[in-house]
Structure formats: C-alpha cells, structure tokens
C-alpha cells in the first residue's frame, strides 16, 4: 500500500516545471512540500477513471520517486484530519 497525495483527476493535465507542479497550466501552491526540487515532467493527461498521485517527499531525483497515474479503484482510504 502506498501513501500518496492526489494532485489531479481525470481529464486534467499534469506537469512539473523546475520543481513546480502545474495542473491544466496553472501553478499549484504546495505548502506541504518541505524540500524544494528541480523536477521537470512534460504535460500528460489523466485518463478516464484515473487519478494522478505524487508523494510529498521530493528531495530525490524524479527517476527514483514513485508517482504517476493510477486507477481510482486503487484508492483504499482517505486522511482522517
């Protein structure tokens, strides 16, 4: 089981530019990310019934971080606070 943050939903476009997250071309404020990163990821669409998840710990190369698109059916729970 993985603990990740949902950053985009089906039909939305996700992108990273110099470590900043963009959804549908709009920069997303992410106060929960403690350490800056310099990730770059070209835009990609979230498929039907999909979600895009990213972890908060981004002080590692983008290749080593497990994030991406998954089926909504894989959601097992939500935060309680």
């Amino acid at each position, binding site marked *: *089981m*993985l603990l990740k943050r949902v950053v985009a939903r089906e039909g939305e476009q996700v992108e990273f530019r110099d470590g900043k997250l963009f959804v549908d071309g709009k920069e997303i404020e992410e106060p929960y990310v403690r350490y800056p990163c310099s990730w770059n*990821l070209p835009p*990609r669409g979230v498929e039907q019934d999909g979600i895009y*998840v990213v972890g908060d710990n981004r002080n590692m190369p983008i290749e080593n971080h*497990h*994030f*991406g*698109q*998954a089926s909504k059916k*894989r959601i097992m729970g939500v935060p309680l606070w």
Partner: protein
Amino acid sequence: MVKIRYLLIGVLMVIVGIVIAITLFPSEEKRVKKQFHLLSEWVSKSPEENAFTMLQKMKNIGSLFDAHCELKVPDQSLSGTYTREEISTYAGSARSHVSKLDLKFYDFDIAFPEKGVAKVTITARLTGKSTAGEEMDETRELECLLRKIEKKWLFSQIEVVEVLKK
C-alpha cells in the same frame, strides 16, 4: 455440580483439540503465507552475515521455486522463465551488492482459482544499504502464482504490477 464439572472438562478438551488441530494442520492459506515469510527471511541480509549463511540462504531461496518460474520484473530487465538454480544464482549475485537487506510483505490477498494453484497479490517492501553505502527503499505490488507440488507450495510466477504510470 459433578455434571457441570464434567461438562466444563469436556468443553475444555474440545477447545484444546481444536487448537492442536489448527496448529498441526494449518490451512492452505497459512501454508502459502509461510512461503512468503521464508522468502523474506532468506532474501534478507544482516551486515554480520558470513559466507556459510549466505550459501545456505541462496540454496534455500531456490527451494521455494518451481523447477521453472516465470519472472516479469521490467525495472530489472528480468523477464522470462528461469530455473530455480538460475534464481538462486541471481539472488546470490544481487545480495552480494548489498551490506544490509530487509524484505517484508504486506497486504496479503490470497485466492485459490483452482485446486493446487494459489494466486497472491501482495505489497513487497525492500529496504537496505548497498556496499557503496547507498540507501535503498523500494515498494512494489506483486502478483504471484504458486503451485502445490508434492505437498509444497512453490513460486511458479512473479510479476511486478505497474501501479503508477508516469
């Protein structure tokens, strides 16, 4: 009063009998889980491990696999059918690159689609340190197929499931 005492003794004996039966004859699910616990134990490595233990563990790892096992691990370019000897050798080679290794399994989902076949979906977490001092922490979902051969559940297929697509 005497009747109640005999009744209580009888009930107690039945409970003890059930506990003994469960312990001596574990369910198929428990037998399958045990194979994962053994795999976890034998893949894991402590920094103090000596050459004799290493060789013994390599041999033991092979004994958990079917004569031919299909592996689908795209990240490691490990896809195809391998003999248990090849798997043992590969495991030994991989373990030689780490000073500490810990393999743990979580979220067991076991199904028996047909007699003598167990399909297990599971989360595997591999943590450790390479001989170069680099920390490792990998979590993957696995789909495994085990076949019961001569009363032993053996791994005959292991596939790493792509949960997240970048």
